[in-house]
């Protein structure tokens, strides 16, 4: 059983200097209430792993604006000129990873794999410093798993075991991040009694979700 905690209590679980996976795609499916609480508490020196940097003031963009972030592992920052400027100024380190590779690396981290071979990035700058492995005469890059201290998820429904469902395109990176972090904090739109989510509709099992954020008022 998980007791629901406040966004501020959730933010307190995210230590300065830690690596944090944040669900969402352009802020859709991001845990905005926990993000606001992180900004509020003045978190510092976070390494953020997320699909993109959203927009200034929004989602991961809000964390960057507030100076919470020292490093960003992400596939796209094109709609966040603030991060682009901080990157050029050397205030935030940005590691660009192809989106499908980012997803596979996070999945590998959660699935206990030592890495995966992907054709993506072969013959591009993404190849730099990576092992090239030939399988059946075709070149692949060995991409290594990603894990985090904390995963911050947004979900649609949760029950008090922490079982989660997601909604449409707000699903995105959330289910794979749920598997790849030590502390897993889910911010639901709604919390329902145990047993109300059919077993076939649960998308993330409660046993791996360590904390549940109270529903919005």
């Amino acid at each position, binding site marked *: 059983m998980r007791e629901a905690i406040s966004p501020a209590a959730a933010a307190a679980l995210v230590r300065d200097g830690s690596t944090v996976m944040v669900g969402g*795609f*352009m*802020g*859709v*499916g991001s845990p905005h209430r926990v993000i606001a609480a992180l900004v509020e508490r003045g978190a510092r020196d976070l390494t953020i792993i997320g*699909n*993109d940097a959203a*927009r200034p003031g929004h989602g991961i963009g809000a964390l960057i604006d507030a100076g919470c972030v020292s490093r960003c592992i*992400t*596939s*796209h*920052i*094109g*709609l966040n*000129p603030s991060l*682009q400027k901080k*990157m050029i100024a050397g205030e935030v380190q*940005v590691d*660009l990873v*192809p*989106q*499908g*590779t*980012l*997803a*596979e690396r*996070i*999945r590998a981290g959660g699935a206990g794999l030592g890495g995966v071979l*992907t*054709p*993506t*990035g*072969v*013959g*591009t*700058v*993404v190849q730099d410093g990576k092992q090239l492995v030939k399988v059946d005469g075709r*070149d692949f890059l060995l991409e290594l798993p990603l894990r985090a201290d904390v995963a911050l998820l947004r979900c*649609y429904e949760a029950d008090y075991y922490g079982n989660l469902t*997601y*909604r*449409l*395109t*707000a*699903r*995105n*990176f*959330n*289910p*794979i991040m749920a598997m790849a972090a030590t502390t897993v904090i889910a911010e639901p739109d709604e919390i329902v009694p145990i047993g109300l989510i059919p077993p076939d509709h649960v998308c993330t099992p409660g046993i791996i979700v360590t904390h549940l954020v109270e529903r919005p008022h």
Partner: protein
Amino acid sequence: MDPKEIIARRVALELRNNTLVNLGIGLPTLVSRYVPAGMLVAFQSENGIIGFGACPPEGMEDPNLTDAGGGFISALPGAYAFDSATSFALIRGGHLDMTVLGGLQVDAKGLLANWLVPGRMVAGMGGAMDLVAGAKRVIVAMQHAARGEAKIVPELTLPPTAARPVSLVVTDLAVIEPTEAGLVLRERAPDVQVADIVAATAAPLIIPDTVPEMRL
């Protein structure tokens, strides 16, 4: 006809029934307007949906239902929502029949550069590298030239998106197919002459005896 409309209409002729297609942000998105009547194409948005439709009327948007650019969309009957690992399993695993992407440069070997201009603001590759590495057919939809400079060049001067050549390049002037032998000029836009295309192209072109006009 508007150059973008020419490109979008011509690319739409490449669509096939019962296929899975990904359209990049920007110009490629326009292709969905010109799906031939009666043809069933499943459009994928890489943020996690197959079978999406246009933006719903104001006030009926759902904040959990957006395209890869964050714009509101709707779900058609039979739509499928999925996570990012599944999305790129579909793209990388040979399930995506076609992707349509914008381009900064295409070279004589058919290599595409579309994600980074050194010295300018860095955007990131997003899903472009996976799409070019993984889709069965990669179609580049772009203006033939940008600010008077040719975008079809002998050799890329910008960083490549993948080591794999694209399948077809559709511009407001021409349809060009990269082959082992080089770039073949397949079609010309309405009222455009072969000489105009050659003049606007920095890479060498193989020109067949007949270069028909696009049938839009």
